[in-house]
């Protein structure tokens, strides 16, 4: 197939799913947390408040655009462009469906660009995420955004290490950087984090750490130090109005969706599951949804760490632990257990 056509055929539905998912996520989160807190959440706009995200988007679009006098105007206006861009772009390598070859091998499909450095693509883009947010914080020339930007970078780069290292575990098992190869490996050897093979223990711990690190990368509670509205009043978003603020929020919701999808692919078999391969898309979306709900459940149940404790947790525990996991999985592979 022509690569451009391919990109459009898969990319446009993926984009629609991500954008719709993010819009729905805001609605879902409010309803879900409302139920959890014995209140209602949005009920007025549309049936069960379903159109609330639309109303919110429209409201944000109409808001006046204010750039503080002291701000660095160019960078202040440019910074919101990048967070959603990077998040959406990192979804390009995630396979969402599966087919079975003529020789019976499961092959992951539904991926925009099956790059053979898939994981690296995701990690590199995730590593770039901190810059637009830092720039947003810096450009506003406000002490709160500045503090938040510095926290953001410190946290983002710190948690990138355990995230990359934990993502290495499936890479070591599969012997490939491509996400579809990782799925194919799991089709043969069982899910990385949930199977009967001995590697699943290592995989399960790696999945937990990867999930935690993704929470931190996506600034979700208990790791949402950069946003910390109880002391920093919303972090880098303080000076942003209207749609620019909305874009940052959108990027956050997109990030949770992509992080859940990535965890599902790397450790929980992605589109794999019982039943015919056609169900792959359903399995993938189901697993993403479960992880996604988990993220919100965690968010509305826990308090947040302090910035130093966050660093402590990362550098004292997560980094060495994930290194141990990498070495253990290497031993398993070298010993022929995986």
């Amino acid at each position, binding site marked *: 197939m022509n690569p451009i056509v391919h990109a459009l055929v898969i990319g446009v539905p993926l984009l629609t799913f991500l954008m719709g998912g993010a819009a729905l996520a805001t609605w879902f989160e409010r309803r879900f947390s409302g139920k959890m807190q014995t209140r209602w959440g949005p009920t007025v706009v549309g049936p069960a408040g379903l159109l609330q995200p639309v109303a919110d988007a429209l409201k944000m679009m109409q808001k006046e655009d204010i750039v503080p006098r002291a701000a*660095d105007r160019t*960078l202040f206006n440019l910074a919101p462009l990048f967070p959603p861009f990077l998040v959406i772009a990192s979804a390009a390598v995630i396979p969402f469906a599966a087919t079975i070859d003529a020789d019976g091998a499961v092959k992951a499909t539904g991926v925009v660009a099956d790059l053979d450095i898939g994981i690296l693509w995701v*990690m590199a883009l995730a590593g770039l995420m901190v810059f637009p947010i830092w720039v947003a914080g*810096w450009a506003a020339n406000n002490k709160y955004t500045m503090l938040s930007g510095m926290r953001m970078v410190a946290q983002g*780069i710190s948690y990138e290490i355990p995230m990359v290292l934990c993502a290495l575990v499936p890479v070591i098992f599969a012997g490939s950087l491509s996400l579809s190869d990782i799925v194919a490996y799991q089709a043969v050897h069982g899910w990385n984090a949930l199977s009967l093979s001995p590697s699943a223990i290592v995989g399960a711990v790696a999945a937990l750490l990867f999930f935690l690190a993704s929470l931190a990368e996506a600034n979700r509670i208990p790791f949402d130090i950069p946003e910390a509205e109880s002391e920093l009043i919303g972090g880098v978003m303080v000076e942003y109005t209207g749609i620019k603020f909305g874009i940052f929020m959108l990027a956050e919701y997109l990030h949770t969706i992509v992080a859940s999808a990535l965890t599902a692919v790397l450790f929980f078999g992605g589109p794999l599951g019982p039943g015919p391969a056609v169900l792959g898309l359903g399995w993938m979306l189901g697993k993403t949804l479960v992880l996604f709900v988990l993220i919100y459940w965690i968010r509305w149940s826990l308090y947040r760490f302090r910035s130093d404790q966050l660093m402590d947790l990362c550098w004292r525990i997560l980094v060495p632990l994930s290194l141990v996991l990498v070495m253990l999985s290497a031993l398993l592979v070298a010993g022929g257990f995986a």
Partner: protein
Amino acid sequence: MTAFAVIAGIILASGLMVVRSENLVHSVLWLAVTLIATAVQFVLLNAPFLAGMQLMLYTGGIITLMLFGVMLTIRDEGVDIPNPSEGHLAGAGAALAFLVPTLYAIWGTPDFGPMVDPITAKDIGSSFLGPQLIAFEALSVLLLAAMIGAIVLVRRKDP
């Protein structure tokens, strides 16, 4: 070829902005643009793994370091973080003095033939775990030394 020209244009333009920008943070961010464009160039040159490394290590790591370096040496001078430059003539002269003979040498030698097979990450791995093993292990020591040295230099004395 068009893609190459566009990317080369971005690299050179942003490179010029790096050395001409008045604001140090802008300069660093222009450097980030150069590095990202170079990563795209790497993809065009059939080196996708290195492109990923360029994004992750170079852009992710070095720009962070640079930004933090700026934040650590900043002075309270209002909005602009100045990045003064002077002696443009001498600078341009030095640059040209390098550029002219180099370009002469490049265009004087015959072009390499068509490329060999695309190089995958696996090849790179076998390369540094095999022939370049000594360099690889030495690198770890170098990094260790650099880090310890930097910590010793940067750490503020305990009050």
